[in-house]
């Protein structure tokens, strides 16, 4: 056997002895409702996810391995989300799953991903989606619904000094559960709503509900619904009635879609919602540095002009991939147990959307300090002004 032949055989033996993952890409499954009734957030998040993957790959990947994004459009349908989750973890054999985008879909997929033992980055807000015992490898990057509600309640009670609260939720699972949580949290502060109701998200007119809230003596309206149509009608009913009661509630009351649905621009005044500190302009009119850096990097991809949708979704999408990068580096690979350990020991990981920490007991990475309250009609470049205090 000549020297050249021996060299080839040695090289072959070396390659064969390398672990399988060393020769492959790091696969990220991305369950995203890019079409369907809940697509706005997903489309924005997808911009962040894709940009982060391209950026990391352009810099050589993670530990020398390129990221491979495997996107599946769930269309906001839990049955499709389940089917794609199974495909991603069992057929595609992804190393991470990000999503799905909506809590209703995530409720259906999180047990499947957990059963496969694959790390799952949760971007739905309802409490039930994470559980250190049931789903040990599911870690939440977004804030919880409770954090939104606590911030809004605190603002209404402590800053606006209102205590005659009217809660208006919608009849979806999310709306019902949010209205219930809001009522419970108000009760802890010693406040019983003067009026509380659930409304069909497609109800064509909310004048009746607003009349009742006014008759009950409400001095603040707190809507808990993600349905922009319903929220637009609520704001219009208040404006048409000439009732200048403050509205404090779900971030969807700040959505750009609302601006188009309201009858007059001034109807949107005196409206506030919980939102992340990362996309809130500081007193000096500037965004936090990490957010601004991402805005600057992404603006050319987003058309180069004013960003006319909620930038926090983009920042969250971007961060999910950066979190994957961090965990692979910390774990030294993609072994799920090592990734779980990496999550559990991560403290104050600085992202564009938030500064994340997870512990062996707590799967919620978003800190309370990163939530604030915004003025709804101040959307500029995807971000908002802070509500006056």
């Amino acid at each position, binding site marked *: 056997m000549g020297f050249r032949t021996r060299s080839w055989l040695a090289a072959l033996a070396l390659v064969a002895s390398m672990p399988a993952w060393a020769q492959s890409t790091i696969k990220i499954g991305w369950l995203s409702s890019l079409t369907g009734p809940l697509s706005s957030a997903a489309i924005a998040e997808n911009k962040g996810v894709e940009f982060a993957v391209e950026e990391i790959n352009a810099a050589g990947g993670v530990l020398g391995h390129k990221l491979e994004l495997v996107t599946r459009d769930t269309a906001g349908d839990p049955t499709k989300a389940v089917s794609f989750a199974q495909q991603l973890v069992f057929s595609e054999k992804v190393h991470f799953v990000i999503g799905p985008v909506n809590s209703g879909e995530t409720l259906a997929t999180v047990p499947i991903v957990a059963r496969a033992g694959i790390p799952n980055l949760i971007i739905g807000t309802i409490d039930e989606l994470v559980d250190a015992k049931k789903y040990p490898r599911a870690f939440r990057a977004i804030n919880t619904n409770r954090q939104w509600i606590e911030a809004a309640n605190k603002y209404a009670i402590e800053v606006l000094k209102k205590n005659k609260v009217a809660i208006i939720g919608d009849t979806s699972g999310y709306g019902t559960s949010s209205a219930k949580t809001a009522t419970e949290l108000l009760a802890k502060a010693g406040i019983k709503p003067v009026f509380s109701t659930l409304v069909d998200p497609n109800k064509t007119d909310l004048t009746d509900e607003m009349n009742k809230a006014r008759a009950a003596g409400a001095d603040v309206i707190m809507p808990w619904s993600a349905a922009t149509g319903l929220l637009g009608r609520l704001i219009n009913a208040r404006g*048409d009635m000439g009732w200048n009661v403050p509205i404090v509630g779900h971030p969807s009351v700040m959505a750009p879609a609302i601006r188009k649905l309201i009858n007059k621009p001034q109807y949107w005044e005196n409206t506030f919602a919980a939102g992340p500190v990362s996309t809130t302009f500081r007193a000096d009119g500037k965004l936090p540095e990490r957010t601004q850096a991402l805005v600057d990097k992404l603006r050319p991809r987003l058309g180069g002009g004013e960003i006319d949708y909620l930038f926090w979704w983009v920042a969250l999408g971007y961060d999910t991939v950066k979190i994957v990068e961090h965990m692979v580096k910390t774990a030294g690979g993609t072994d799920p147990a090592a990734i779980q350990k990496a999550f559990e020991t991560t403290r104050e990981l600085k992202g564009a959307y938030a500064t994340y920490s997870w512990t062996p007991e707590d799967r919620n990475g978003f800190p309370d300090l990163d939530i604030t309250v915004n003025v709804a009609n101040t959307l500029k470049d995807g971000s908002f002004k802070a509500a006056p205090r």
Partner: protein
Amino acid sequence: MIVLVSGLAAGALFAATALAYNVMFSTSKVLSVTTGHIAMLGGVFGAYVITGLGLSPWLGLLAAILVGGLFGYLTDVIAIRRVVSRSDEHLWLLSTLALATIVQQGVGLWWGTEPRPFPRLIPQDFSAGLADQKYWLPIIATGLLAIGLELFYRRTLYGKLFVAMSEDTFAARARGIETDRIRALSYVIAGVIGAVAGFAAGQLTFAFFALGLTLTLNGFIALAVGGLGSNVGALVGGAALGLLNAFSANAIGGEYQNTVSVGLLMAVLLLKPEGLFGARNVRPV
């Protein structure tokens, strides 16, 4: 009072959807799942022409009528004609569901999945309260559509052909009536009715791609309560459903609204299966 007026306005839209169901049913014995989607198209295309293209409300209405009529015709060509001629089974349920889904998804991709505003059609301040056009436009439009339809049935030859086909399609064909053409015409007329109603109610519903299935269901409930085949029944059923929804939401909360609607349907089906104004089916033996 606001409950009554807003309930009647929503009920008018359900009634118009039930009228469109009736027109299509009269010639084909099909209850098309696309019926609510016609109204959705009327609202979306009306808003597109007026707000998007900056044209007048009249041109918006014309566009809605054209799109509605065309969609009605295509429903017959794509989802009804071949299915009905080749099978006695109720496979039209699947074919019309498929077409409805395609149209909804297509509009979602083009128009977007968030509700978008429908423009003011007549100059009027938003503080008009109960006199606001968003309430009375759909009520008036549905009333006019019902009167027009009744005149069409009673005063025109084509109207009489519709009636003949609704009574016995085979006998009508045996007497030389081109039943395929009449059926296609009925789908065009149903398309126009639905689109005009969707246009008139646009300020209530917004221009929203997912409106179709809600209207398909509520229009069907209105139709079943009023009585299949009866235009008066469609109006009464629509108004009853709209009012019941509004008063139940007012009295016991929105979480029970759908239960009450479907409960109404169940109650009528149990007590008077042919509906309030429907003809009892008597099978000669």
